[in-house]
């Protein structure tokens, strides 16, 4: 138990959260306006088409009308920008989490649920538990460690539990089916449609996919900075290939993957100077 608890709260440089926070909160307005503009369109649908999720029924969330959707959208974008600036991280972060969760209820309550934002939601949930952070700060913090660990585990579970779902819904013979062929017929690109002539290749791809998903917890063993960067490269390579083949990309999940990066090493012009200052002052004080 002791060792397990320590693993969950292993201190990491708090500058890592400072960078990750900016990525996560800046992604929110991009998501709303650029990548998933269809969410806001749900406000224009007759309410007869609303099929509430369990969470919407349990929390008695309002039926999304045009007004509800517009109010949530603009409040969400405004608070995400405040949170991205690092101001009042606990308060602004908590509000962003609540509004984004409601935004997801608007998104997913019309007959299709997306599976690309579990880790992103976990990131929004845990980031407010870390207080103020500075770019480039290498002093280690257990609260930063726990928050990033939660996101990393959520990223891994998205793969691992996807393999579980394939076995649950598709059966043990899922890899020998025509799931990839179907995906390519429906949404293929010039880079993938040629594969339809080689069904064996697609079946091999399916074995590789479920095998890799089952092995995904190994990513959590990547301890050195170099191994973590390699893990990020591997995952990005996978998601970019999927995009090239069937034009689907798990963007919010990709943002969550960045929780693996040793981003406290990033040198930001202007910012770096300021973050070094307090340490220098402390040294001068010690000498005096």
């Amino acid at each position, binding site marked *: 138990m002791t060792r397990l608890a320590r693993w969950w*709260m292993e201190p990491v440089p708090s500058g890592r959260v400072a960078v990750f926070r900016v990525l996560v909160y800046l992604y929110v307005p991009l998501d709303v306006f650029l990548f998933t*503009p269809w969410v806001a369109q749900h406000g224009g649908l007759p309410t007869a088409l609303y099929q509430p999720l369990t969470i919407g029924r349990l929390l008695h969330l309002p039926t999304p009308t045009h007004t509800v959707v517009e109010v949530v959208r603009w409040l969400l974008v405004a608070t995400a920008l405040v949170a991205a600036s690092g101001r009042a991280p606990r308060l602004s972060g908590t509000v962003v989490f609540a509004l984004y969760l409601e935004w997801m209820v608007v998104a997913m309550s019309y007959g*299709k649920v997306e599976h690309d934002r579990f880790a992103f939601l976990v990131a929004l949930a845990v980031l407010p538990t870390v207080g103020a952070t500075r770019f480039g700060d290498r002093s280690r913090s257990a609260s930063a460690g726990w928050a990033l660990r939660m996101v990393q585990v959520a990223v891994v579970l998205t793969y691992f539990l996807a393999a579980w779902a394939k076995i649950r819904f598709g059966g043990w013979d899922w890899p020998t089916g025509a799931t990839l*062929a179907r995906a390519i017929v429906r949404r293929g690109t010039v880079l993938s449609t040629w594969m339809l002539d080689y069904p064996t290749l697609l079946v091999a791809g399916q074995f590789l996919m479920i095998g890799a998903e089952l092995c995904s917890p190994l990513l959590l063993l990547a301890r050195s900075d170099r191994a973590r960067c390699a893990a990020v490269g591997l995952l990005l390579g996978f998601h970019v290939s999927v995009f090239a083949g069937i034009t689907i990309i798990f963007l919010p999940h990709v943002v969550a993957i960045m929780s693996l990066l040793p981003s406290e090493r990033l040198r930001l012009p202007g910012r770096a100077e300021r973050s070094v200052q307090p340490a220098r002052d402390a040294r001068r004080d010690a000498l005096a």
Partner: protein
Amino acid sequence: MARGSKTSEPPDGLGRFARVWRLTATGLGLALVFTGTVWGQDSDFPFGPFRMYSTRDSPDAPVVTTQIEATTVSGRHLTISGPQTGLRRAEVEGQLGRFVADPALLGSLAVAYQRHHPDDPLVRIEIVRHDYPLRQGQATGVERTTVLASWSRP
């Protein structure tokens, strides 16, 4: 964490309460997501099963896609895409059972379309299923269509 609990301020900077609630939240979150994966459905989002491409498609069964085909007042025929109504293809497929059982619900789609295109509203909507047969996972180039539900402006 036993060592930390003996002193008021453990070396890692988190007090006892801070550690206990973090571990409790971790356990609760894991329990929810595993329960959702084993017993849950999509509607249990965000704790439902991660069922992206999780169904098995038989290599000899046809690939099925649906389209919403419509006719406007001025007599134009068109295939309705997500941005024209606000309901995406996957969402139409997700609610397909409702549309087939109660085609009058397609009238809601006509209302949604009219909000985006007030000049030329729809008078007829059909949900059409396209079957593309496969043989041992290989495309055959054949296509069959079936009308699943239709609605006309009363």
